């Protein structure tokens, strides 16, 4: 073995590092999306969206409690546009990976935000302190800043249709 070989990263290591770099976030993947869930209260909705992230081991269960506590303490300011709620907590509340899930409610629900109620889409945000957080937020902004995308979100009926919508942005 030549000396220079030892300086190089083996193909296996390289692909591992590369994979880490590319996949250290989860954005609306199939297991993170539920369409038309019947939900009775905002807390139930936040917990349902959070549970999707817990099930994929992207956040700890205590992060879900922290999201609900933030809603109780700070109010529904995270209903940041008509129909759209983005509950979240702090990275130190138990985020393992930057991530976003979506629950589309069967029936829209009032969260107490005068300007933007009712809520139909709950995007639970696993807020990490990493660079991936910025990337995740940019993806959310590019998806939701276009009113026509929100219209499509209302009527799409399968994950495949959502995937197409995300892919275009």
């Amino acid at each position, binding site marked *: 073995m030549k000396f220079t070989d030892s300086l190089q990263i083996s193909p296996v290591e390289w692909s591992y590092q590369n994979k880490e770099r590319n996949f250290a976030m989860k954005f609306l993947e199939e297991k993170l999306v539920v369409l038309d869930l019947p939900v009775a209260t905002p807390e139930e909705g936040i917990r349902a969206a959070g549970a999707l992230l817990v099930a994929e081991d992207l956040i700890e269960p205590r992060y879900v409690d922290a999201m609900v506590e933030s809603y109780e303490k700070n109010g529904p300011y995270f209903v940041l546009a008509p129909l759209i709620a983005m509950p979240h907590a*702090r990275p130190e509340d138990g985020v393992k990976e930057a991530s976003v899930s979506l629950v589309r409610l069967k029936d829209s629900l009032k969260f107490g*935000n005068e300007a933007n109620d009712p809520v139909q889409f709950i995007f639970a945000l696993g807020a990490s302190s990493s660079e991936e957080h910025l990337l995740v937020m940019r993806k959310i902004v590019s998806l939701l800043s276009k009113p026509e995308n929100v219209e499509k979100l209302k009527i799409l009926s399968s994950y495949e249709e959502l995937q197409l919508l995300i892919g275009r942005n």
Partner: protein
Amino acid sequence: MKILCVCGLGQGTSLILKMNVEEVLGEKNIMADVEHIDLSSATSMSADYIITSNELADSLQDQPAKVIVVNNYFDMEEIKAAIDANIKQ
């Protein structure tokens, strides 16, 4: 010019607001230092303007900075109108 985008935790909502505010300021060629921050830290920082939601604006009325309310964080037209009405160059 210093602008604070404020939300309850300073993690998610305020970052989205900051991204869209910076885009509007860029289009208007307004130079500003825009930060996203949580409500309690914001009360101890000095700034020229604070942009936040209606829900949190009341808690910030005692600040010397001018408070600007934006309701729809994804509506670039609303953000443009709010900046036009409040920020003087």
